[in-house]
């Protein structure tokens, strides 16, 4: 019997499925170079044009089917593929080279396409790079037609199976029948490829980017596809299968159960209050936040006002947006974070430089302080919306005390202006800062004397602390939320806040991680802010916690310096609490 193997890729479309593998052969299209006799040249060009014609017809058929079956909007992918096929530069170059070099059409076409693919692949833009798959899909189809080969007809699959392939084109996916295929995994592709988008709209669990996984797999092997976590489990043991089946059922059951918790407060069993709040990006998200039981908005990312329309929102628009949130959430608190944007977006014409390291560059509070006239507009709009008393302001990316003082003096200027104009605002408005740069955490004691609360932004804090760009797949595995250094910075920040009598929340993804909750409560966090969908789950954990026990547990974890050991402790604690139940997220 084969051993269970865990293959890890990129989650493309959520859900879990399992079954026998139907392996779509990589179909290495073997292309040989062949010299042509003078007399063969015109015939070769004719053959090329015939193949173009046939490929064109195939794509038209697929386009029609997709329009009927899925979404007329998605047919645009095939419009692009048809244009790629009929591209006059390519066509002209192929025909010219066949004439001049007297080499077969397959060879010339492949070389010509490769040249184009290379220039697009060298783009720094990931999204653009993924479009290479569209070109490859077209050229594979054309080459198959030139060679007289056909892709295996997916319609011929006999029993319901899980599809695995080196790559799948959107055209392949359209040919899949749902009663035959329950999900798929591919070696190539990224989370935003057309195939991933299509899989989502078709409702197939899917994993992409499995690198060279196929060589380990034979047709008929049994696999589990975990589209939530981007995993493929090859030849799973009975136990794993059982766990996944159970997880499928549990997911449904828990979703229902958790939903009932939503109106209860976030509070440990021995009465320590932990506010469970929502991170939102759009005003419309408030409805969802309320539906899932948010006790406030722990983070409203105001830059989405900008991102939604690619220009700076006017004072009027800002005030309206802030007032809406404040009114809808009243009397619950709302934290508005000032623009966290790169300078290129924020300062408009003032800059056209390209930054080599935007994460270490001119962004967020740095830009705001350099362009105070824009910063003031935002602060004024926030203050004007603060009259009811539930609005708080937060600055992103503060790195030290001087910076905070400077930002505060801008805020004070705006307050004075409002006062002199007789415009009302909340005189006792709370001001907080994001704790997301290690230098800020190290200076937490001083910073705490200058503001009313901290909110720890773990996503950036982890990246900066561990020097990892988690978008870079080569180093992404160094991004470790539970790295002892990260935990110590959090602990230090919490202690500094409490020593100085201010409260401290956490609004990064760690707040939504069920494994982190007990630890964070034990470290003394006062508030957790997460995406609305995670709120019921986190509430449930908080409500299961005994605060004094959690403190001891956190102490034990913090004394541990080995990452794997830390993770084990967290998992064991979770299991102790909720039995063998799978750790789930609601989305």
């Amino acid at each position, binding site marked *: 019997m084969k051993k269970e193997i865990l293959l890890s890729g990129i989650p493309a479309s959520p859900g879990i499925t399992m079954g026998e593998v139907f392996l779509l052969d990589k179909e290495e299209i073997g292309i040989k170079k062949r010299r042509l006799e003078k007399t063969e040249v015109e015939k070769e060009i004719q053959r090329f044009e015939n193949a173009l014609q046939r490929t064109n017809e195939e794509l038209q058929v697929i386009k029609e089917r997709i329009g009927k079956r899925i979404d007329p909007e998605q047919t645009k992918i095939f*419009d692009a593929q048809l*244009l790629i096929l009929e591209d006059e530069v*390519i066509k002209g170059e192929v025909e010219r080279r066949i004439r001049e070099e007297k080499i077969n059409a397959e060879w010339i076409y492949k070389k010509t396409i490769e040249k184009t693919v290379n*220039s697009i692949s060298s783009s720094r*833009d990931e999204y653009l790079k993924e*479009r290479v798959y569209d070109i490859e899909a077209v050229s594979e189809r054309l080459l198959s037609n030139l060679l007289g080969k056909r892709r295996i007809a997916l319609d011929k699959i006999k029993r319901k199976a899980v599809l695995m392939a080196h790559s799948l084109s959107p055209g392949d996916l359209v040919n899949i029948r749902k009663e035959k295929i329950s999900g798929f995994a591919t070696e190539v592709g990224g989370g935003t490829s057309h195939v991933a988008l299509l899989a989502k709209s078709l409702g197939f669990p899917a994993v992409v980017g499995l690198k060279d996984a196929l060589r380990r797999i034979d047709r008929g092997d049994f696999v589990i596809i975990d589209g939530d976590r981007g995993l493929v489990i090859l030849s799973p043991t009975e136990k794993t299968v059982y766990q996944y089946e159970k997880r499928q059922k549990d997911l449904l059951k828990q979703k229902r159960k958790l939903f009932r918790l939503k109106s209860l407060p976030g509070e440990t069993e021995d009465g320590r209050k932990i506010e469970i709040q929502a991170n939102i990006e759009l005003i419309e998200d408030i409805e969802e936040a309320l539906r899932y039981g948010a006790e406030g908005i722990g983070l409203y990312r105001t830059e989405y006002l900008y991102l939604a329309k690619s220009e700076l929102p006017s004072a009027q628009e800002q005030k309206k947006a802030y007032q809406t949130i404040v009114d809808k959430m009243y009397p619950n608190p709302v934290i508005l974070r000032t623009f966290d944007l790169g300078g290129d977006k924020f300062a408009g014409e003032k800059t056209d430089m390209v930054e080599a390291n935007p994460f270490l560059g001119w962004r967020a509070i740095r830009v705001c302080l350099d362009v105070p006239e824009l910063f003031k507009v935002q602060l004024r709009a926030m203050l004007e919306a603060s009259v009811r008393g539930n609005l708080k302001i937060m600055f992103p990316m503060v790195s030290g005390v001087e910076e905070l003082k400077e930002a505060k003096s801008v805020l004070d200027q705006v307050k004075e202006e409002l006062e002199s104009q007789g415009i009302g605002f909340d005189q006792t408005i709370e001001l907080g800062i994001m704790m997301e740069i290690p230098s800020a955490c190290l200076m937490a004691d001083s910073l705490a004397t200058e503001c009313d609360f901290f909110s720890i932004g773990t996503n950036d804090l982890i990246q900066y602390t561990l020097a990892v760009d988690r978008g870079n797949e080569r180093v992404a595995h160094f991004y470790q939320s539970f790295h002892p250094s990260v935990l110590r910075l959090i602990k230090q920040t919490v202690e500094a806040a409490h020593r100085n009598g201010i409260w401290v929340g956490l609004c990064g993804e760690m707040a939504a991680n069920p494994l982190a909750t007990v630890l964070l409560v034990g470290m003394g966090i006062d508030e957790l802010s997460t995406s609305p969908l995670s709120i019921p789950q986190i509430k449930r954990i908080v409500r299961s916690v005994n605060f004094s026990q959690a403190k001891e547990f956190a102490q034990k974890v913090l004394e541990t310096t080995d990452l794997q050991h830390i993770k084990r402790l967290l998992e064991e604690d979770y299991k102790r609490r909720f039995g063998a139940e799978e750790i789930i997220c609601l989305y």
Partner: protein
Amino acid sequence: MGVSLVEREVQIKNKLGLHARPAAMVVKSVSRFKSEIRFIKDDLVVNGKSILSVMGLAAEKGSIIKIRVEGEDEDQALEELVGLFESKFGEE
């Protein structure tokens, strides 16, 4: 007629740049005109009627592209193209 040419600079404003879909829109629109149409980015000059050449510009958000049109319907073509770029191809 045809001796002169018209030019205009546009900026890519949609978030995802000139990827397959917008490139397809551009090429489709361009192909209806008789004029010769070139897109120029940095030192790259490409045929505006070829989708692969247009994608090959790898024009990301914020990049500046010069449109050069030459032919009997050049003014009309330029106007339509500029409008298309300005509309961000109907994307964000």
